[in-house]
């Protein structure tokens, strides 16, 4: 496996100003993303999961250069995107593309399929008419859209087919990184698996790198190599999917995993660790560990001191004072030493 790092994110933060009051006396911020550190290797799929409001989409939008970070670095192929001039950044945008959740609102209803797919090519590549048409046709074949539909409008398509148009737009420029923000959440179950299979196929065939953002854990597990779990603007755990599902280190991850309903009634009797309570407001996050208000194992230190996001064992990162499943850590370490 190549370990070349395509993207490195350092201490990425986004604080939205929600200051109220006539003279803006009461300064207040929503800490949507509060210090992310991770990297994405070339050719891998990094899944980001978390519940609504955890900041996963905000993080995706910042990496996709749709939102300006409050603080931090986004290093893409050794270059900090935040220090680039406008024209340099414009060139870079062709390398980072996005696929959005809602194929109904992310496609311009007045543009035909040909125009939709040709638009990024027109902006970034200088192709003549014939080349452009060939490239669009090639993209339509790749994503499984019938070429005969080239002159149709988005409203004539079902949700799954619209998402295929969105994917064709995203891959048309041969980007190095694609950020998929909930690409299957708005689709029916039988269509979801079609689109997921398509994404996996394209990722392998075109050697793409994905950041796959979703709240649906089974989908993330299927597509990702490594998974980052976010809670209240921070990553609480990051590891390979095999290790994550072998046993979680962070209590939030464990609660999240066991909350997912299993489509098999025989598994119903299994004991679940249901996380009590609600997610605290990101405007006023708790002191110490973010999760201590809902954590069944919280101690005094959790309420006062924020745990460091660190490597607990070979390739397993977590931010927790008292990680679970420590037997898995020891096992890994002995493997390492022998």
């Amino acid at each position: 496996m190549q370990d070349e790092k395509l993207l490195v994110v350092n201490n990425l933060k986004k604080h939205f100003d929600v200051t109220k009051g006539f003279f803006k006396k009461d300064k207040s911020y929503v800490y949507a993303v509060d210090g992310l550190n991770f990297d994405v290797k070339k050719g891998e799929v990094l899944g980001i999961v978390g519940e609504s409001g955890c900041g996963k989409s905000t993080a995706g939008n910042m990496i996709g250069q749709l939102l300006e970070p409050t603080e931090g670095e986004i290093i893409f192929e050794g270059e900090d995107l935040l220090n680039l001039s406008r024209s340099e950044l414009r060139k870079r945008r062709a390398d980072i593309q996005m696929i959005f959740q809602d194929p109904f609102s992310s496609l311009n209803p007045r543009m035909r399929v040909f125009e939709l797919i040709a638009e990024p090519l027109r902006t970034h590549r200088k192709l003549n008419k014939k080349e452009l048409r060939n490239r669009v046709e090639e993209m339509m074949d790749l994503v499984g859209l019938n070429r005969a539909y080239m002159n149709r409008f988005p409203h004539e398509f079902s949700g799954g087919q619209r998402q295929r148009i969105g994917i064709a737009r995203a891959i048309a420029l041969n980007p190095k990184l694609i950020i998929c923000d909930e690409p299957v959440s708005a689709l029916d179950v039988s269509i979801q698996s079609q689109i997921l299979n398509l994404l996996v196929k394209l990722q392998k065939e075109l050697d793409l790198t994905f950041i796959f953002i979703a709240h649906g854990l089974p989908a993330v597990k299927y597509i990702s190599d490594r998974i980052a779990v976010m809670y209240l603007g921070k990553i609480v755990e990051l590891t390979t999917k095999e290790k994550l599902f072998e046993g979680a280190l962070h209590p939030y991850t464990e609660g999240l995993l066991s909350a997912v309903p299993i489509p098999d009634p025989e598994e119903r009797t299994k004991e679940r660790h249901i996380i009590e309570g609600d997610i605290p407001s990101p405007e006023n996050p708790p002191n110490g560990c973010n999760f201590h208000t809902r954590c069944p194992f919280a101690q005094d230190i959790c309420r006062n001191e924020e745990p460091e996001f660190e490597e607990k064992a070979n390739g397993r990162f977590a931010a927790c004072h008292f990680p679970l499943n420590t037997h898995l850590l020891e096992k890994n370490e002995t493997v390492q030493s022998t």
Partner: protein
Amino acid sequence: MSEKLLEINNLKTHFFTEAGVVPSVDDVSFSIKKGEIVAVVGESGSGKSVTSLSIMNLLDKAGKVVNGEILFDGKDLTKASEKELRNLRGDDIAMIFQEPLTSLNPVFTIGNQMMEPIRLHLKLNKKDAKARCIEMLDKVGIPRAEKVFDSFPHSLSGGMRQRVMIAMALSCNPMLLIADEPTTALDVTIQAQILNLMRDIVEDLGTAILLITHDLGVVAEMADKVVVMYAGQVVEYADVFTLFKNPKHPYTQGLIESTPKINQLYEKLHSIPGTVPNPLNYPSGCRFVDRCPFAMKQCITHEPNNTYTADGHTVKCWLHEMDRIENETLKEKVRN
């Protein structure tokens, strides 16, 4: 065996639109016993929500029940007057919806909205009604119920709002709770809390639940019986263990296989090719024929009947009808 609380027979609900007649619900039959959880599962456009709206007669102007009967406690709701229905709604039959924010009125306090059905149906005075509200809010696990009673819907989180909806729905001790995608808008950890709560309610109060959902995970977790709908029709009906262990209809099989399980790793996900047919122009034979891996000649031309199999299944598919016909001719031969 306990008696049937709700029985739907040959229900047809059509929408009369400018583009033509849309047969949203086409010949649907199933029943719910007291204290039972029946799940109706299907994708968007399968008619699952329209079925539930037909029971309460909450269809908009274009929609009409054109055939069939809905027997609730022996009474046919399709023939009931608006006044009779109004007495039932919120009293014997209650309903919760997907998005709790749009089902609560933003300009009235939670208490104000909760008291309305209680005062109307249970005929309590203000003081007793308030006590009942707070008792219900406590029961659904809302902390500081007295404070929530006086607060407005916008100040509560999604999970809390859905708890309020459930408290409100249960406040008059309904016999049947219709839950239309009750957890779809919620996060998984909150979904797990709400599903737990609904299960406790069935155990404590004996309320029957008609659970409408697209999520097979939720079905497997909650239901006693499952109705699988596709393109306005019931394609399969069985108890939950039988259905997941031995699905008979190719659509059900495809649906179960294409739902990834969190405790398994997959090389490739199973998927059902194609899309749902246009409701204005359903195929004349089986409606699943274009997407079915086992489609035969008669599937294109003739609509299959419901076949009842030995393990309590009902399947609407030619594959199984053929089996049955073969079995019967075999039996006859043996007899002769």
